[in-house]
Structures are given as C-alpha cells and as structure tokens.
C-alpha cells in the first residue's frame, strides 16, 4: 500500500518550486532590490558590487535612458535631461513641489501630475520611476536566473493616494507584478522585528532623502500591527542639503547661478552634510564656472542650528503619531532608525531625547527597508517555511472625505484606520427634480476642501427626478490592502440603480498604460500583445495551481455535481493554457472563475470558523 504523504504544517500539500519574488525600495536618492535566498534576506548588488542604485535617470536624444551611477555623473553637465529625486514629483502638480525655482527641469504642468520635457520627449514621473524599476528588475532577473512572480514595492507611509497610485503604475509599466505596496517603516519593522524577535511597542523613525515617516507598531506573536503613522512626504535629507546650499550662496554673496553651478553647489552641500556625520567641521571649496572660488567652513553647531526647524518638524509629527496611538514616549520599547538621513548626529540626539533612550541603529539604515520588503514578498509569494509566518495590519495615513456644502469636508474614513477598510455615506438631493450630483473626494486632515488634496471629482447622473431630499445616494469608499482607494455610488430608493466605479483622476487609465507599454516595447523590439498573452497565461496557471491546492485540501465541501463542474472548467482551461488564442483563454478563465465562486466563498467561511475554533491556519491546512 502506498504511504500517504503528509506535508509540514504551513507548507502546501503539493510542494512547489521556490517562487522568485523581490522587494524593491524605490527611494528618493537611492533604490535597492532584495530577495530571500536560502531563508536569508539579501540585497542584490549590481555587476560591480554596488548595492545602491542612485535614483537618477538621464535621457539621451535617441530615447535611451541611463540609470544609476553613469546618469548621476552627468548631473552637473546635463542637468535638464538628468532627473534626480523623481520621487518628489510622483502624483504631484508643479505647485506642490518645494523649491521648484531651484530645479533645472523644463516642467510641463499636465493635468494632475507634472511632467518634464527632455531631449527624449516629455516624461512623466511615472515613466521615469519605471525606468529605475526596470533597471532593478533586470538586475534581479540576471542575479536570480529566472522569471519573477512578483515584487513588493515600498512607499513612504505618509504617501497619499495619488502618490501610491503613481508608484503602482510605474511598477506595472516596468513589467512588474505588484504583490503589494508596502509602507517603508512597516517594511523596516518586519526586518527588525523578525531579526530580533522583538515584542512590544516600537517606533520606526524613517528619514529618507525626500520623505519622513514615523510609524508606531505593536509587535506580538507574529502580528505586526501599525497603531498610527505620521510624517511629511516632502521632508527629507534633500531639505537639509538645501539649507546648506542657501547658506553657501548667502555667505559667499553669490549672484543667481547657472544650472551647472547650481548642481555643483548642491553636490557640495550634500557632501558637507555627510562629512559632518563624522567630523566637527566641513570645508567647502568650490570652483564655479566663472572661475570664482567659494571657500567656506561649516561647523556642526552651525549646521545643527540652521536645520533645527526641520528636525523639530519630525519631532512634532512623532508626538502626533504617539497621541494618535494614545501612547506616551515612555511606553515605547525601542526606536528603530531608518534612512540614510538618520546618520546626522543632531537627529540621533533629538530622537534620543524625545524617547529618553538610545535609538536602535543595529541595522543598515540604507538597506533595512529593502530587506523587509523582500521578506514580505517571500511570504506573499507563498514561500514561507513551516512556523515562519506573520501577519501585517497596516493603516491609511490620511483621512478620506467628501466635499459638502460651502467647501467643507465631511470625513468618511479617519486616518489610522486599519486597512482594508470601507465606509458608506448617504447623500440626498438639494433641489426638486435634481437628476445629477457632483461628488468630490478629498484626502487630508483639514476641515476646508481648499487645503486638502483633491483625489477625484465625478458626476452621478440619471438620478430619477424626485422632491428635494427624497433620493438616497449611497457613496462607498473602499481602501484596499495597498492603501488604494476606489469609490462607488448608487441611488437606492428607486429600483433604478445608477452605479459607477471611479479610480481617482490622477491615476493612469488602462489604455494609457497600454499605450506607454507599446511605446516602450517599440524600443525593446518586443510586442505588447504578445506580452498581454503571456500575462494571461501566467494568470491562468496561477489560478489552476490555486484551485488544485484548494481541491486537495477542501474537496469534501463540494457536492458531486459541483465537483464535476469545476473539474470540467479546470480541464477546459488546462486545454488552452498554452495556446496563443487570447479569446479562448479569456473565456476558459472566466468559466473557471464562475464555477469556483461558491467553492471560494465556502472555503473562506470555513477558514473563519476554524480561526475562531482556536486552531491556527497552520494546523488546519494540514
């Protein structure tokens, strides 16, 4: 008699290959890619051994994009076509960008998000970020030697919906399957928490090149629960550089600078800042293009003084996050420092004073986010080993609301709500016979629409004419596990159902992504439709695998007839899974999805039952 094979708890019954998944830290200054290899999270270096990829993209007239160190070296010589810190422009209009007057680019103020005119044409921040992501993807594929099943991309916790959507669009454009958008401090908490078996309340203080995040988490028995988050998505090391830059201009009494000299001084300002992390004073010697010399010395004391308001801003956000979590600094067990900018001594000191404890610096602040993202990617890809399991509960950073009469905001979902979250709000008509209604969705903490960020505006039409106040329009906000919003609305008094779904307006439409993909493939001599077919085949294979494993563990909850229908649909899809016929593949996929709808619902109910019966998931999937 054949022996039955029993898998380890937590492992799937049918052992599958290790799925290649990566974590990407798409930073303002530098980006990294990491993966879990033989149970260890490791950063993947480029062919010359560099872990960091400077987030710099230079466009050439032939359309070619240079990314990384070579692009960075052209920063001063070709400033208009060499884009640095593009993350600051994601999901932003020209008016939103700080110090825009000192930036060398030819901005084009497009609808919603700003764009940049380069020799290779007009580029959106999404496309520029996609070029960075493509480089990291190529690095990972070369290093891992196989096809990636997906990536976890990190975003600042304080990124709003527009910035998140832009990041997801960029990943898609780079041909990456996004397993999840993960908040940077949460990624750091995973890396820190798992490495140190940490339990209790932790604060993650994350000061990067262009963004600041503070997250307060409760770590307990494999659960990472974000209690609150706060920050400033336009505050980072760049701002410290800028203070030094302004000081140099003022001290040296310089006239308005050309682009080359601006970039040159910015580079020297940054070097001086970094030098002060190890030394008491930094010499600044620059030869300008006019032949003029700048010769200054910046002391630590002076640097601390000129950046005091910046540090103070981070502390205020930190206190606010603590209050949101109803905690005092003394209840925090450890403060994990993340981001290269936390190397500045005045930051270490200020954070230490606030929490009355030494901040934790035992992880490389440049790498910890990528390492955590890789761990999460590995988990989401289904590679987890038995007993090595955890769950993340994250929150939305900013409140979501609707504009009401008089330019006021009605908050619908408050900040720090655990995601996924949905909330519905009812509205009625203002005039007799009103058949349309305009809905304006905003994000932010203020009571006035004008100071919140506008996410979407849409019109509900076809409301049946009724007396004022009789119609009942229900607007539902749904924020998914990526922190992305979708809104739907319907009129519910009459049988007539006007239902619409909106994606906030700044996001790219599927057609726009398709067009961009097509354009980028015309360079890469690839074919967009072939690519779409491959994606469909991957999707079909994933579904088949998921259903096989579901049938292996839960077939007993199906009737004979139901089982027969599913088997037929599985056979139908299996028959066409490798074919080139897209429509046949589409149809077979839809059929299998429909046939397994009820099965999926019952399985979900079953796992809920078992969860409460006191068993954990590892025990029940055996």
């Amino acid at each position: 008699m054949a022996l039955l094979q029993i898998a380890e708890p937590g492992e799937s019954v049918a052992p599958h290959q290790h799925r290649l998944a990566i974590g990407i830290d798409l930073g303002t200054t530098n980006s990294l890619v990491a993966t879990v290899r033989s149970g260890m999270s490791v950063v993947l270096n480029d062919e010359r051994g560099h872990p960091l990829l400077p987030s710099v993209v230079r466009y050439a007239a032939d359309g070619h994009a240079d990314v990384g160190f070579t692009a960075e070296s052209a920063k001063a010589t070709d400033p208009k076509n060499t884009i640095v810190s593009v993350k600051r422009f994601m999901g932003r209009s020209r008016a939103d960008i700080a110090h825009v007057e000192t930036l060398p680019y030819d901005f084009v103020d497009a609808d919603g998000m700003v764009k940049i005119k380069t020799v290779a044409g007009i580029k959106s921040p999404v496309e520029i970020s996609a070029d960075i992501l493509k480089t990291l993807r190529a690095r990972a594929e070369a290093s891992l030697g196989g096809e990636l099943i997906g990536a976890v991309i990190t975003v600042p916790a304080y990124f709003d919906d527009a910035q998140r959507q832009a990041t997801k669009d960029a990943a898609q454009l780079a041909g990456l399957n996004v397993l999840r958008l993960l908040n940077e401090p949460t990624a750091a908490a995973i890396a820190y928490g798992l490495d140190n078996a940490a339990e209790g309340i932790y604060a993650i203080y994350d000061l990067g090149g262009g963004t600041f995040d503070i997250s307060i988490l409760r770590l307990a028995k494999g659960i990472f629960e974000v209690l609150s988050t706060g920050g400033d998505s336009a505050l980072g090391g760049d701002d410290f550089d800028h203070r030094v830059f302004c000081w140099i201009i003022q001290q040296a009494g310089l006239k308005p600078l050309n682009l080359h000299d601006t970039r040159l001084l910015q580079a020297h300002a940054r070097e001086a800042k970094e030098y002060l992390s190890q030394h008491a004073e930094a010499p600044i010697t620059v030869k300008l293009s006019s032949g003029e010399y700048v010769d200054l010395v910046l002391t630590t004391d002076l640097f601390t003084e000129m950046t005091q308001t910046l540090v103070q801003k981070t502390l205020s956000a930190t206190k606010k996050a603590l209050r949101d979590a109803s905690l005092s600094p003394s209840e925090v067990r450890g403060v994990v420092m993340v981001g290269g900018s936390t190397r500045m001594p005045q930051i270490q000191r200020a954070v230490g004073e606030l929490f009355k404890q030494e901040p934790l610096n035992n992880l490389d602040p440049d790498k910890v986010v990528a390492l955590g993202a890789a761990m999460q990617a590995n988990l989401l890809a289904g590679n987890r080993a038995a007993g090595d399991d955890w769950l993340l509960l994250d929150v939305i950073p900013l409140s979501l609301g609707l504009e009401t009469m008089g330019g006021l905001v009605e908050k619908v979902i408050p900040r720090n709500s655990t995601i996924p979250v949905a909330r519905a709000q009812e509205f009625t008509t203002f005039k007799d016979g009103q058949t349309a209604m305009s809905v304006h969705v905003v994000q932010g903490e203020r009571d006035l629409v004008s100071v919140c960020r506008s996410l979407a505006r849409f019109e509900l039409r076809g409301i049946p004419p009724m007396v004022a106040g009789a119609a009942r329009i229900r607007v539902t906000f749904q924020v998914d596990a990526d922190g992305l919003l979708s809104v739907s609305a319907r009129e519910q008094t009459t049988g007539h159902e006007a239902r619409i779904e909106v994606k906030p307006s700044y996001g790219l439409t599927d057609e726009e992504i398709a067009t961009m993909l097509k354009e980028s493939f015309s360079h890469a001599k690839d074919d967009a439709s072939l690519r779409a077919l491959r994606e469909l085949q991957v999707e079909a294979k994933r579904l088949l695998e998921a259903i096989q494993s579901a049938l292996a563990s839960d077939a007993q909850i199906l009737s004979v007839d139901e089982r027969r229908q599913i088997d037929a649909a599985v056979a139908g899809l299996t028959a066409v899974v490798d074919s080139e016929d897209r429509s046949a593949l589409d149809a077979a996929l839809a059929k299998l999805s429909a046939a397994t709808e009820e099965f999926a619902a019952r399985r979900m109910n079953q796992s809920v039952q078992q969860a409460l019966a006191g068993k954990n998931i590892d025990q029940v999937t055996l």
Partner: protein
Amino acid sequence: MSIQDDLPNIRFSDDYFALFELPRKQALDMGELDQRFRRLQSAVHPDRYVQAGETEKRLAMQWATRVNEAYQTLKPAGQRALYLLNLLGFDPQIESNTAMPTAFLVQQMELREEVMAARAAGDENALDAAHQAMRREVAEAQQELIVLIDQRHDFAAAADLVRKLMFQEKLLREINDALEAVTL
C-alpha cells in the same frame, strides 16, 4: 452525512458580537476581542490570498474589511454601546435627540473655554492636566455604561450617557489639537 450538513454557517452577515463569538454585553474582555480579531484577520486577510484567483481575492478583501469594521465598532465603548443598543432593539436616536442637561452643557462650555485660554497662552501644563482629567471622566462614563446596559437594562439612560461621552471625546480631541498646536 450530506454535503449540506458539512457546510459551515454563513457568517458574513452575522452581527459583530456573533462574528467574534462574544456575548452581547457592554462589558467586553478586550484581550479576548484583540485575540479573536487577530485570529480572524490571520484567516481572511488579503495577504493570505495574493496567489489565489480573483474571486478569492475579492472575498478576502470583503471579509477583512468586515472584520476590521466589526473590531472598530466593538472596541471603543461609545460605539459599542450604540451598536449594542440597536441590536437590543432600542433606538438611541443619537442624531435626532440633541437635548442635554443644562448643567452638563454649561460645564462643557467652561471646560472648552479653559482649553482655548490655555491654548492661546501656550500653557502646555494646563492642557496636559485638562487632558488627564478628561480621560478620567471618559473612563468613568465607560464603566457606568456597563452598569446601565448589562445590569440595569436602563437603555434610555445609557443612550443619554453615550451622548455625554461623545461630547467628552470631542473635547478630548480638541485638547489633543491644542497640545499639538502648543508643542509645535
């Protein structure tokens, strides 16, 4: 045994207490609630279904959303009381009935004026003291809700108390805002 007997109950539309398999009481073991919340999320969270089909992904998002909503409703005492009163068939008329005892309103107004004054003067210590005092009052009201609902079944008095609690919580938020403004 037929297939039907084997089916789990459909739980999605259950009330929040039933969802967590907890008794319909204002007095709630918060540790137990936390634990059940985590167990449920471990079973339904979308992160568990990243490799699944679209149907399961959608179901996971709906379930996780509902579990979050249930948790957020049962966790704060005031929200829990309102939800419980409705379940018990008592309409707390939280929106339509705005009548409050004059003495309470006067006291609230005085407290609010004190907070405004402390804010204007940048007096962090006074705000901290006000914050602590208000937190104590809120805690007392929460205890009293348990007595009114679970023991005396005096739902009308409980509804009145919830309205007071909402005033107090609003004031607590204002004190928080003031502290934020002062410490900025």
